């Protein structure tokens, strides 16, 4: 066994002892970048490489991180200052859905109402008439005798739908505007659309009150 050549793969001989390996490398750590007045090339090269990598990293992060925003999934995007806009609400879609779920219980899907009890909306002069009146009806409700298209109604009161005291619905201004727009443009009605701002203005002005009566509404323009 002892006459194996140094490169015999069956028994590889050590090139150095462990102790000297440790101490030699410890001495290596004491080397300075300059030996005898001449700078060693390698530390300088590595320093430049490292700095170059940091520069690259910083530039790349700056461009493609999307400012670390949780909603940016495309690295080419930059977050704008504005909030992420929600999908635009289509008032007719929203209005129709709400009408069908809630209003049609009384006013029926075809807008005809129930004779003597619930006034119709199709062709109604109230529905396509003054926005001020119709917004108030929806916000605070309507009670007492009512004449629509020459016929008398008044047995049932219309509840308040707005965000007012005593309301069981608490619809926000967007939703009220949407439903009113739908009603004014459905079944052959040719009324103007109503905006949420109009509703908000009247809501602020009137705040909470009990149901309107026909006379009070007729007093409005």
């Amino acid at each position: 066994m002892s006459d194996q050549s140094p490169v015999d793969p069956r028994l590889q001989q050590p090139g150095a002892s462990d102790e000297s390996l440790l101490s030699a490398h410890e001495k290596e750590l004491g080397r300075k970048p300059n030996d005898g007045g001449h700078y060693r090339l390698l530390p300088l090269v590595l320093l430049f490489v490292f700095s170059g990598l940091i520069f690259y990293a910083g530039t790349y992060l700056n461009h493609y991180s999307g400012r670390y925003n949780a909603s940016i999934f495309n690295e080419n995007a930059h977050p704008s200052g504005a909030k992420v806009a929600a999908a635009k609400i289509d008032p007719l879609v929203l209005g129709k859905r709400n009408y069908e779920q809630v209003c049609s219980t009384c006013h029926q899907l075809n807008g005809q109402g129930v004779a003597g009890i619930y006034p119709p909306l199709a062709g109604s002069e109230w529905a396509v008439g003054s926005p001020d009146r119709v917004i108030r009806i929806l916000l605070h409700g309507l009670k007492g005798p009512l004449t629509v298209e020459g016929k008398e109604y008044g047995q049932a009161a219309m509840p308040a739908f707005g965000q007012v005291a005593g309301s069981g619905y608490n619809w926000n201004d967007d939703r009220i505007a949407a439903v009113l727009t739908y009603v004014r443009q459905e079944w052959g009605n040719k009324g103007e659309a109503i905006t949420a701002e109009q509703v908000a203005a009247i809501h602020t002005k009137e705040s909470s009150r009990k149901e309107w009566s026909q006379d009070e509404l007729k007093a409005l323009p």
Partner: protein
Amino acid sequence: MTTASNEVSEIDANARFPLSLLIASAILWLILSGVLAILNFAQNLSPSFLADCSWFTYGRLHAMQETAFIYGWVATAGFAVALWILGRLGGSPLRSLNWTVVGTIFWNLGVTIGLIGIALGDGTSISLLHLPDYVQPLLLVSFGAIAVTGVLAWTGRQHRATFAAQWYAVAALFLFPWLFSAAQAMLVWFPVRGTLQAVAAGWFLQGAWTLWIAPLALSAAYYLVPKISGRVIPAYDFASLSFWTLLVVGGWTGGRHLVGGPVPAWIATIAIVSCVMLTFHYAVTAINLRGAFGKSSISLKFIAYGVLAYVVGGFADAATAMRSVSEVTQFTWVSVAQTQLANSGAFTMIMFGAIYFLVPRIANQAWPSASLIRGHYIAALIGTTLLVGSLVVAGIVQGRDLANPATSFADLSAHVRPWLLAATASQALLVLGNIVFAIHFARVVVAKPTVTAENLFSQPPVMEASVS
């Protein structure tokens, strides 16, 4: 205590049984995982192969093969070499070796139960964490039992000075339990919500490579290159910077496989930047370990291949992380090729080099046959190169076919098929080489030593520093 005149001492004698147990386990797991990999590749070529048995359906077989390789071979081989290095450089016999033996037995038991569990359907679908939840804590505890020996060898070392090989080995042993337990908590026991699971899984996957597997390989390389060549590491003053770069930057590459994925873009951007920053570590490693190249020692031949694979893999990682490249190579065989380059190329070849060097020292016995060693080397060299090469080509072909919306999956698999055939053949060659290795190892450990340790090895020379 290793004095300047003796290559082996009671440090090696003391550790003989635990290290032999670990290496024997490692080699058996290597062969098992290799066989499972051949079966898995065969299923790519012939999908109905073994498909009627739910134990060996493609997905589960893939999980079993990966688990056997990483938790079987990588873990135990890494333990063996790390403990041996820490013992020798620590200067005194390893303590708590009974814990190491108990830990090894329970680790092997845990992996075995885990593999059966995966076959039965209890596995998770998380990459590198496929083990069923009931064995993961067992593995965590067993890891601790084995690792404690290594950590004690560092804290109780004889010399105040420490060497790069020790830093890497201790880092691997100390950091993996944190990675493993954090991943278990976030993914298995208290799963986090939605794609955060993917982020946590990516962090664990990259952390396992940069903070556990790569340090184990580098520890062995940093020890053996100066040890065998007799020369100091050339730019040793940068080794420390390179070490910390790997550890600090490595964990940030977690989002590497989430480019274009359902996570905020900054996660992938940080990962890409970190992969590029890591090229500094790979460059310094190449400079420091270039002493492995051009030598006639068989261990250094293995290690040279491993270092080359490691450095090339590192630069390839940075290149494929780029979004423009990722667009084509993501989700293809290229990622598999990169994993193979890292695990089979870098880690495995360096471990082979280390094992061929250390076994005579713990067994007091030379390897019986030089031609078996050289045969294993040729098989491993050709097999690994062919495997990685054919998978890279397969991946590029697949990537280009995926990018073209007109190409159907039937055409895609036809184009990729010849390359997968080559990959299967090279995997078979690797397994053949490893079987030869196993038989050879068995012969060494069962043979009775005929000469005493002192007469087996020559006097190790004293290493000179490059400046006095």
